[in-house]
């Protein structure tokens, strides 16, 4: 339910009148520009070569990811996109400023994320050394990589020097400054336990249970020491878990000024850790969410109903044979949450993966895009095979040899992605088909950014074993917007965790700088507000991770502002910020 409703352009209206079938075009607000933008390189799953490879193939259709950042500071968001095959190169797509991209991965020194002993799984930009340049972390099955951004388009691998070289089998990573010392810390979510997956010494490295597995890789917390090194402080800070982590999300869920942590776990219980404000966390799962047995795949955190509190969206598996349903945890305040997925229509998307809140029509309400589907292959289904295993009494699930190979069968394949339009925080309505965003490739992650700085949020979709999509947002409504790029001074320079409360037309909207929330996808660091038809912005209140607050006045719509912590001046980003 958009304020003012969509306004079809005069040209489109003429075409409709002329009966040229343009009604469909005018209704479609996203254009697939993947090929012409030069970002169509296919992702390929890793093919393992070990005695369990034929079994592992069914459970490792992962690694398609995208991470967005303006790595060269030219005012246009760029993308890092992973491949996973042994010979596959990762791509650093430099944004040319005209909705075309150039793969500069090799020249930049970040393309080699795959080899016989490592497979890229996810990626994350974060400025670990506070030099103002986003650095790059690549999460891998095997050992992770950290690349320092040297400027001038060059990167240097500093994994060993940073103290990060070890077997982790990471599948996700986020960054935020949990101890508010001014440096972004690194949180790695690990799927398998830290064994050599490429040459396993034992066959017992699969999940021991479908619902309560605790033999996964858990979460590793690396504290940023402030001198370009990291220390594993997982136990010290109270994060002691060994589930099959698939995604991590951070946000100040209790509005106490520090960042809390949600852990989505496959084959077991998701965890919610409250930040105690003293550099430690407390596991609040039982008192806040309860113990679930679902297959947590994604965490995104945002205030979907504009009530000033951050809510959590988690995807699980929902299909004919397994009706788990997704979670939409509504924040009721005081660290109490209610699952409103059924009521809001976001419960059943299929076999869910990455999901992201963003306001695609700039109406002031955060919409939600959800990736779905596991393996789309032959017409035969793998479901009977897996359940034939499940019902065998006393079977050791941890032993990979007991799992049936998937072969050329499909499992929850060919599932459509969902684009949920937020109807004033009450219910979501799927608009994916209308906008051509309902592809059935096996979606994993997405990156949302305004790649052409026109105030409309575009989407890059990473598909496993398939070509990606880049969708340009062409929304024809005249809805207003404003974006902010933030830079911390006392706070971490990337300003991760900074909250903005924008008041306009008597309404206040909360957004914050995310350090990589959402499975296999990192979206732009810019904080974007849709303003509907309201051009006047009363004020913008900023709460930095350092605790400092700042109020901006004189902000006008349809601009991208850069704001530095403690500096009362604000600058309009020099890049073209006008609608083409």
């Amino acid at each position, binding site marked *: 339910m958009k304020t003012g409703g969509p306004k079809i352009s005069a040209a489109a209206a003429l075409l409709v009148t002329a009966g040229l079938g343009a009604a469909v075009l005018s209704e479609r607000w996203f254009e697939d520009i993947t090929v012409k933008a030069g970002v169509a390189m296919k992702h390929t799953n890793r093919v393992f070569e070990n005695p369990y490879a034929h079994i592992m193939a069914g459970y490792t259709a992962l690694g398609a990811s995208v991470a967005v950042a303006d790595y060269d500071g030219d005012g246009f968001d760029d993308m890092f996109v992973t491949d996973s095959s042994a010979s596959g190169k990762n791509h650093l797509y430099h944004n040319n400023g005209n909705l075309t991209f150039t793969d500069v991965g090799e020249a930049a020194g970040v393309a080699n994320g795959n080899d016989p002993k490592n497979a890229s799984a996810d990626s994350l930009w974060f400025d670990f050394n506070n030099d103002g340049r986003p650095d790059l972390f690549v999460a891998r099955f095997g050992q992770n990589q950290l690349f320092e951004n040297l400027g001038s388009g060059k990167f240097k691998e500093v994994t060993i020097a940073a103290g990060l070289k070890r077997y982790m089998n990471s599948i996700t990573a986020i960054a935020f400054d949990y101890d508010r010392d001014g440096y972004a810390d690194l949180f790695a979510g690990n799927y398998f336990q830290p064994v050599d997956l490429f040459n396993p010494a034992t066959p017992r490295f699969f999940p021991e249970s*479908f*619902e309560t597995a605790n033999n996964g890789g858990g979460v590793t917390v690396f504290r940023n020491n402030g001198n370009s090194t990291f220390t594993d402080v997982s136990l010290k800070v109270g994060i002691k878990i060994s589930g099959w982590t698939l995604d991590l999300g951070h946000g100040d869920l209790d509005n106490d000024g520090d960042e809390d942590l949600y852990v989505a776990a496959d084959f077991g219980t998701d965890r919610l850790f409250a930040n105690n404000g003293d550099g430690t966390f407390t596991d609040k799962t039982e008192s806040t969410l309860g113990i679930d047995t*679902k297959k947590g795949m994604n965490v995104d955190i945002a205030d979907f109903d504009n009530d000033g509190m951050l809510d959590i969206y988690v995807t699980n598996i929902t299909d004919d044979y*397994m009706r788990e349903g997704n979670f939409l945890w509504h924040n009721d305040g005081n660290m109490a949450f209610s699952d409103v997925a059924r009521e809001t229509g976001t419960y059943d998307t299929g076999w869910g993966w990455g999901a992201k809140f963003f306001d695609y029509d700039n109406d002031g309400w955060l919409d939600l895009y959800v990736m779905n589907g596991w393996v789309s292959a032959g017409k035969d289904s793998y479901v009977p095979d897996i*359940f034939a295993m499940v019902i065998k009494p006393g079977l050791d699930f941890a032993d990979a040899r007991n799992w049936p190979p998937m072969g050329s069968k499909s499992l929850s394949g060919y599932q459509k992605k969902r684009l949920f339009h937020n109807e004033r925080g009450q219910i979501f309505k799927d608009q994916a088909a209308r906008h051509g965003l309902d592809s059935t490739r096996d979606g994993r992650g997405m990156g949302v950014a305004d790649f052409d700085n026109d105030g409309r949020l575009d989407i890059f979709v990473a598909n496993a074993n398939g070509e990606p999509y880049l969708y340009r947002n062409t929304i024809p409504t005249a809805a207003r917007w404003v974006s902010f790029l933030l830079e911390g001074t006392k706070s971490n320079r990337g300003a991760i965790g900074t909250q903005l409360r924008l008041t306009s037309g008597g309404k206040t909207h909360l957004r914050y700088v995310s350090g990589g929330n959402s499975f296999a996808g990192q979206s732009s660091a810019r904080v974007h507000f849709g303003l509907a038809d309201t051009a006047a912005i009363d004020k913008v209140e900023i709460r930095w991770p350092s605790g400092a607050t700042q109020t901006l006045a004189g902000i006008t719509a349809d601009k991208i502002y850069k704001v530095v912590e403690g500096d009362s001046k604000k600058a309009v980003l020099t890049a073209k910020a006008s609608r083409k």
Partner: protein
Amino acid sequence: MKKLIGCLAIAGLAAGAAVAASGEADYQAGMKALASKDFSNALGRLEAALAAEPDSIRFGSEYRQAVIQAKEYDRCIKFFEKLTADSPAASNGFLNYGFAYVDKIPASGAITQVILANTALSFFTKSIDIKPSWIALYTRGNSYLYWPKIFGRAHLGVADLEKAMAMQKSQGGKKSYHSRAFVSLGDGYWKMENIEKAKATWKEGLALFPDHSGLKARLSKDGDDLKSYIDDVLDPNKRVDTNLIEIWTN
């Protein structure tokens, strides 16, 4: 020797009568405790009643309803495991054993639900093997319908439900629970994509039970509406009403 056996047999009968009497007493005491939410006492007394009469459909059903209130699913499963081991000819003991697994399904995760449902089927089968009663055939047939299409079990459900239907027709007389067979058999045909046969079965049922809301609802819907209605009815996350009170009150 013959005399001794005869004496023992008489003694056994007498003991059985005494046990049967104590079964009813324990049952009554158990139900009284349940009414006052004294679950520990209620479950204990109902278990004692069932131990005395392992084939009692009534004791078994009431015990399970108490278990659902007390959320003591594992205790219930353990109890029936022992009961059926001790009384391997108790057809209704196995039926209730299967239901004990069904009762636990809504409290379990999606994969465990499958394991529980499959285990329940094995005990329903055991019950049918011992005595192919209407209730056992109906129960197993209806259970098959909860399985997603991909498992290809709907035809097994239809086969059981057709037998139950034939049984209720041949027995004559109209029992309120007979309406269930019309509902489920129609659902089975629907699951096998035989819409005509499904509607005919529901219509036949509605002719006999003109106030039946489930039959009316099915007959008033088509296509996706009907699908979502039946999907909702067969949602494994919803608790199935396994109270068998209709059996002994009709």
